Structures are given as structure tokens and as C-alpha cells.
């Protein structure tokens, strides 16, 4: 805060003094922070409302061969399908609001008290609508759906400034079973710091599968690239030898040929953090 407008508190207090139960037509709720909310407005978008979708899914275990590296394809599909259900339901809410896109999407998994193999997959974001259409005609993606993006409001603002727009969140999942070592192998490694080749190979394989599935989705959306990619590896509740590798990011397309952004001002904060 550098400048304040004199009279703001008076104008603000007057508005509160005149509060009447209003028309809930233009009312929106958003889970954006204040910074994100103001930046999304400045990027030329209006929040329409909070949108969410969820699915409670039974993700059991699939048996793998004890001594074999392999993908547990049924589990990969289940983990993917559950997230897809949550995302699709969230998109349907945004579509009903007439949104151009959804920003700040959070995709979470929460294992429920119902039972050890029941997890809730939930997608939450803020549906937004643009004040003006872009030069290319529409903000929606090539499937005519609102775009989804897990970028923060700040990153979204920067992306739009730089002449890009999200086309959709893309993801790929791969649940992988890593082989146990045979008895003599394990004995041979006692007291030694050595590479365990089958572990290394398994991790390479699984990550590669998750990434390539995510990239295939971006190609399907006609994206130029994927930004803000995160590669998560979680064992959820499957023990140490079964791990899910999950790649997720926001696919983008260009809005204009040049991608110049305003030169940032250099500032020296007087705080440590």
C-alpha cells in the first residue's frame, strides 16, 4: 500500500450504513485470496462463483507379482477416473454459470473415515467470465468447454499479460509396483551403499508413463505447451512397494504472436521473508 485515496473509509462506511438485503443475482462466492481476486479482476475477468465436483471412490489393491516391476493398470485407471469424475462435475457447474474458465483449481484426495480403501477426490476452483472476448474469438477450449487451470491468480495474470491463455488442466497417472529384492540380492547389499537398479528403472518407467499420458491430453487440446507441471509420487495407503506417479499441469495456447511483458520494477523489501 503506497497510496490511499482520501475519503475511502467514508465512502466504504457509507456503503455499509446503506446495506439492504439486495438482489442475489450478481452475487458470487470465490475461494481466491484477496490478491488473486484483485489480479483476476485486473486481468479482465469477473468471478462468477465457486465451483466444485467430487467423487468418493473405492480404490482397492491390485495384486502384482512380488518380484516384478510392473504397472498396476487397474489402479492407474481407477485413480485417473475418480479425478476425472471430480473435474467433470466441477466443469459442469462452471458451464451452467456460463463461465469462460476456472482458475485456482485445487485437486485433492482425502481418505475417508468410512473405510481404508475409500477416498474422496475433490476439485474446487473459481469460475470466471471475461469482460471482452480475445482476438481468437473465444476463451473456451477447442471442445467448447470452459478452460481449467491450477495456476494461482498471480500466475494466471502473468500468463494473460504474456499473451497466453490456459486451455485446460492435463494429468497423467501411473500406479507402479516395484519389485521386492530376492533373498540373495538383499543379502549381497547388506552394509553397502549401492544403487538398486530395479528401483531406479521402475521410477524412470513410471514417471515416463505418467508424463506421456499428460502430454497426450495436452495434444488432444491443441495446446502449445504445459506450464506449472508438478510430478507427485504418493503411496497413498498401499505400502512401500506400490506408488502412484501423478503428473499434472496447465496446458496453454498463445493469444498473440508476441509474448513481451512489462519490465518489472526492482524493489528491495525491508523484511527478511
Amino acid at each position, binding site marked *: 500500500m503506497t497510496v490511499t485515496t482520501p475519503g475511502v*473509509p467514508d465512502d466504504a*462506511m457509507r456503503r455499509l450504513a446503506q446495506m439492504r438485503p439486495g438482489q442475489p443475482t450478481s452475487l458470487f462466492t470465490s475461494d481466491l485470496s*484477496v490478491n488473486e481476486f484483485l489480479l483476476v479482476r485486473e486481468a479482465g475477468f469477473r468471478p462468477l462463483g465457486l465451483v466444485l465436483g467430487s467423487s468418493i471412490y473405492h480404490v482397492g489393491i491390485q495384486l502384482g507379482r512380488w518380484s516384478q516391476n510392473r504397472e498396476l493398470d487397474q489402479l492407474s485407471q481407477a485413480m485417473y477416473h475418480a479425478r476425472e469424475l471430480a473435474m467433470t462435475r466441477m466443469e459442469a457447474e462452471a458451464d451452467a454459470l456460463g463461465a469462460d474458465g476456472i482458475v485456482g483449481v485445487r485437486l485433492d484426495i482425502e481418505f475417508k473415515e468410512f473405510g481404508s480403501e475409500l477416498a474422496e477426490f475433490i476439485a474446487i476452483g473459481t469460475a470466471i467470465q471475461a469482460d471482452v472476448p480475445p482476438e481468437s474469438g473465444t476463451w473456451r477450449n477447442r471442445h467448447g468447454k470452459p478452460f481449467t487451470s491450477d495456476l494461482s491468480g498471480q500466475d494466471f495474470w502473468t500468463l494473460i499479460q504474456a499473451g497466453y491463455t490456459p486451455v485446460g488442466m492435463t494429468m497423467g497417472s501411473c500406479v507402479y509396483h516395484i519389485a521386492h529384492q530376492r533373498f540373495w540380492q538383499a543379502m549381497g547389499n547388506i552394509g553397502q551403499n549401492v544403487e538398486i537398479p530395479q528401483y531406479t528403472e521402475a521410477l524412470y518407467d513410471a514417471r515416463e508413463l505418467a508424463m506421456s499420458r499428460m502430454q497426450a491430453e495436452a495434444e488432444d487440446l491443441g495446446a502449445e505447451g504445459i506450464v506449472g507441471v508438478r510430478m507427485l509420487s504418493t503411496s497413498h495407503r498401499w505400502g512401500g512397494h506400490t506408488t502412484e506417479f501423478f503428473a499434472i499441469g496447465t496446458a496453454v495456447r498463445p493469444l498473440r504472436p508476441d509474448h513481451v511483458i512489462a519490465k518489472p520494477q526492482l524493489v528491495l523489501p525491508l523484511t527478511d521473508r
Partner: protein
Amino acid sequence: MTGEHAALLSAAGFDLVGQVFGSTVMQIGWAGWSGCGWRPGYLGPAVLPPRSTGFAAYSSALRTGRFTALDRMRRQAVALGADGVVGVRLTEQPRDEQKREFTAVGAAVRSRGRQRPGTPFTTDLGPADVAKLLAAGWVPAGVVYGLEVAVRHDDWRTASSLGFLVGNTEMAGYTELLTHVRAQARRDFAGRVAALGADAALMSGLRSRTWAIEVGERHTDRAASCLMTGTAIARFRTGRRPVPAGLTVLPLRSSR
């Protein structure tokens, strides 16, 4: 509140008055609880939608507790001549089996202008956020929450005891129950924002919980609750100059 907070507030045209607090202890029992309405042998295995009926007493006690704590905090702010309370924190603490304490605490502020708001506003946003909102032409109107508690009968669409036999699939019944409580909590929340006369709301929390209830011999039902909290905000027009635009900066911080 730190010196930095006080500086932010004064930049926004407010003075810090002091800390305000409100609390209440509620007895929360299960009066009115009647199960999901399912009766064995009555029309076979029932597939009943989630119902909120049995929990009316429980959820109204939660509402009263929160409202009373907030209201007592607001009265303290009025007594201090404040115009608003920022950085409000609402907490619930179990005191024993059936008693729960609700507290609300925040920092009371007073506008330096001549205009008074009627009743003091409340917000769970901190001073920095309040200052930024005001600069952009929005004023916090009040802390708002939406609440819903519901129950659903356990049947073949929800039974998780099947384990292996179920395979990997969506549990439609549980999904329905949670979707229901969230939708109701969101509706409740939006209704309260509209009732205040505000234009929008910034959500700060969405918490859902599920638990099992023993309703009879070897039969359990599932209950779920959802609580949505946030701050309602209202748009105001300044008759002066437009809001300062954002400035792109690159902090020269060392990563150490």
C-alpha cells in the same frame, strides 16, 4: 496485531482500537435424532436420499453457538466505539462430553472519517487484505458461514465392508451424501451473504466431516457435515480517482 498491521490499517484510514472477544458454551445433545427413517423389512432395502431432519437440533445448536460468540464480540466493538473488527478467528472447543465452547476474537478498528457504518463490520481477512480491498473499492461487510448436517442410510450402494468384491468403483451413495451437504452449505452461505445486502463473498474455508452412527442392531448409518466460512464484501464507488493499478515488481531478496 503487530506494528506492521497497525501501519497497514492507518494507511487504509483506520485506527486500531484494541482486541475484542466473545464466547459462549453450548450444550450440544442429540435431541430429535431419529435415524434415517429406514425400517428393516419395510419395502426391502431402502435407498433413501440424504436427510437433514434428525440433525435439526444439532445444527441449530452449532449455529446459535457461532452466532452468539460473534455477536458478543461485535457488542464489545460497539462499546469501544469501533466501526469494524478485522482478522476474526472463530474457534470451537469441546469442554466435556456434551459441552462445546465457541469463541470469536479479532482486532477492533475505527475509521478516521466522519461517516459511521451503522453496525460494525466483521471480517476474517487480515489488515493487509482489508487495506487492499478498500483501495480497490470493496469493503468487508461481515463474517458469514453456511452449515449443513445430513444422514444417509447405508445400503448396497454404500457398504464398504464388501472390500475386495467391490473392485475399483465410485461409491455413489457416499458421493451423493457429501455432494448434498456441500450443496446445502453453499446455498445457506449464499443466502446469508444476500441477506446482509453484500455483493460477493470470499470463501476462506470449506470443511467436511463424515462419521458413522449406530442406529440399531448391527446397522449403522453415515452422517456428514459441511461448514463453509468466509467474508461477505460490498462494492462502493468513490467519487474521487480510479483505483491504482497493480505494479509488476521483482523483489531483490536473497534466498538465504
